């Protein structure tokens, strides 16, 4: 299950880097009383900054905070002594609104919380609602949902890798990755018509079956995508600047990572092989052959390696899913939960009644509760739903992986330089829509 431990060799010798790939610093001298100053600065002009603590307000509008995260940092010189995060700028009350809506009406909100992974959220929510309704979905639906989840994971990791490259100073990989992300958006657009907020599932099935020829387009994507991966790998993975700016930053030990509740690539980079798809499987993931990459040191660089490898594994899963995609219906045939075809609503009495009842009243699950977690690109994404027998949930709770992952940021950044805060923050892969909900 574990990947081989790799040694990072810095391939490009960029001037200004030392042998470990870290940027060389300007030489400093000390004066008679021990104060540090640069060689150029004439004595007496530079104020004495030793011991002075400074407050830096990073965000909420800073582009490197990936949304509206605000970090209040206490600096001593350039070192972060304390970090106080502030969130909530995007709080919309999705959970409150969900208590006033039927289950299918909540699906569009799951698009909007973690908007980089909207198809994956739709699947997660539908799985939770289906457990609450006691529904077993069809085989074709399961395989289509696996394809959806894995495309969504690739999409999210591409945005993560692209924006992190930008944060650290590399622009080109961002363009290559967004080109591939565009290809996935094209696939989703052909399938359901929407690109970002797709609402691709329904309770008991999918919004639509895939159109003719779609699987061929998917095969084309699966063939062409690994080329981009190897290009990015070649440019970034052993790049001196990249290595120098990511290795050894924000280290979390395995025990700490579990105790802080980290999940997903954050946890696996620390060397804990926990993947919801393997350990608490859903959608028959146990029948697919794929590996769970783990890191060895739990730093920003390992998180990058883990996510890159996860994309390759996702491609493997999609290849297997294409192989086994069965024919048959995508929706279950219980029309108390799934709408009958619209064409029948005007010709068939029963279908019309079902349409009316479902739209006006909504399907009613029995009294109960369910917590279904899936492996989202950010980590363990759970939906906890409680039903009191009416068509609207009493409580709909999102377990936001990046919220819990972000809560460890003070632990990770303290003691590092201000510029490293950007790299560490980027490595968490936060989406503020999900954190603030």
């Amino acid at each position, binding site marked *: 299950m574990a990947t081989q431990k790799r040694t990072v060799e810095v391939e490009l010798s960029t001037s200004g880097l030392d042998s470990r790939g870290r940027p060389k610093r300007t030489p400093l001298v000390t004066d008679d009383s021990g104060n540090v100053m640069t060689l150029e600065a004439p004595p007496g002009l530079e104020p004495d900054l030793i011991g002075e603590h400074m407050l830096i307000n990073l965000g909420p509008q800073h582009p490197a905070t990936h949304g509206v995260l605000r970090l209040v940092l206490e600096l001593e010189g350039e070192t972060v002594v304390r970090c106080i995060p502030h969130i909530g700028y995007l709080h919309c009350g999705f959970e409150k609104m969900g208590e006033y809506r039927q289950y299918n009406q909540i699906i569009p909100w799951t698009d909007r919380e973690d908007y980089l992974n909207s198809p994956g959220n739709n699947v997660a929510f539908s799985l939770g609602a289906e457990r609450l309704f006691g529904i077993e979905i069809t085989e074709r639906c399961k395989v289509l949902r696996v394809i959806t989840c894995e495309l969504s994971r690739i999409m999210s990791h591409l945005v993560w890798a692209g924006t992190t490259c930008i944060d650290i100073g590399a622009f080109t990989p961002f363009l290559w990755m967004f080109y591939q992300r565009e290809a996935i958006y094209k696939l989703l657009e052909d399938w359901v018509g929407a690109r970002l907020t797709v609402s691709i599932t329904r309770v008991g099935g999918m919004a639509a079956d895939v159109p003719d020829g779609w699987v061929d387009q998917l095969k084309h994507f699966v063939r062409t995508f690994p080329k981009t991966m190897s290009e990015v790998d070649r440019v970034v993975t052993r790049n001196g600047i990249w290595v120098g700016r990511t290795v050894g930053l924000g280290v979390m030990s395995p025990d700490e990572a579990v105790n802080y*509740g980290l999940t997903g690539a954050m946890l696996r980079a620390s060397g804990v092989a926990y993947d919801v798809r393997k350990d608490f*499987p859903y959608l028959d993931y146990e029948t697919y052959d794929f590996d769970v990459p783990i890191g060895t040191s739990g730093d920003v660089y390992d998180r990058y390696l883990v996510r890159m490898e996860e994309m390759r594994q996702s491609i493997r899963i999609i290849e297997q899913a294409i192989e086994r995609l069965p024919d048959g219906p995508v929706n279950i045939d219980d029309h108390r939960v799934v709408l009958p075809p619209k064409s029948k609503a005007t010709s068939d009495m029963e279908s019309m009644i079902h349409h009316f009842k479902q739209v006006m009243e909504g399907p009613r699950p029995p009294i109960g509760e369910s917590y279904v977690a899936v492996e989202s690109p950010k980590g363990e994404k759970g939906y906890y739903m409680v039903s009191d027998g009416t068509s609207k949930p009493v409580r709909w709770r999102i377990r936001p992986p990046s919220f819990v992952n972000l809560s460890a940021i003070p632990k990770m950044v303290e003691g590092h330089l201000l510029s490293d805060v950007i790299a560490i923050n980027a490595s968490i892969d936060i989406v503020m829509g999900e954190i603030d909900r």
Partner: protein
Amino acid sequence: MTAPVPFTPVMAGEASKDAPAPVTPRDLPHRGGPPNPSADALRQRFGKAVQRVDVVWGETSVVVDNSQLAAVVRWLHDDPSQRYDLLADLTAVEFRDAEQPIEVVWHLRSLPYRRFLRLKVLLEKTQELKVPSVWSVYKAADWLERECFDMFGIKFEGHPDLRRILMWEQYREGFPLRKDFPLRGRFSRSEQLKQALAANPEARYSMEELSIAQAYEDLPDEMRRRLSAGEKTGE
């Protein structure tokens, strides 16, 4: 270069190697079915403190006594036969029926045993909403408890820094996820806008943060006085 630190991966399921590989659950019964073995272990260990064990859709919920919760969680985390090392989620549920108590819900995962357990504490609304904090066991509880406090007003005793998290610290309208809180909030949009415009931007820094800056010397006397008296926010 420094010598590499010896690395041993932590594998989920390492304590249950003989158990069959996990599979996707199928055809779960609505109620009943085999409970999580930890539920029986809890009954044996804590006796009457375990009020009820439900199995709904294959998920085991254990309702425990509020006073014993901290001990239960600590035991589940530390005991070598349980090892619930991941706090997956923490939240609360208020029912539409006003008579029903509020449920505080902990979702725990044991990675070595691949188990999932839901713990619940029932809080009568007539009494003070107070449960013990599990922060000393799981650091993950820090923000989750703050969020639960922010949304439901449940106090977590022993949390080191129980402040609002999603709503701003000066928010005075109440607790948004409570059923008596109207969907649109308590104030009209114009009133909300008026309040936002009247807010003092300085107050967006807490007093604690203002004390970091050298600008502390420039603060008004009154603010410095409140700061030294231990007040947390600037407004």
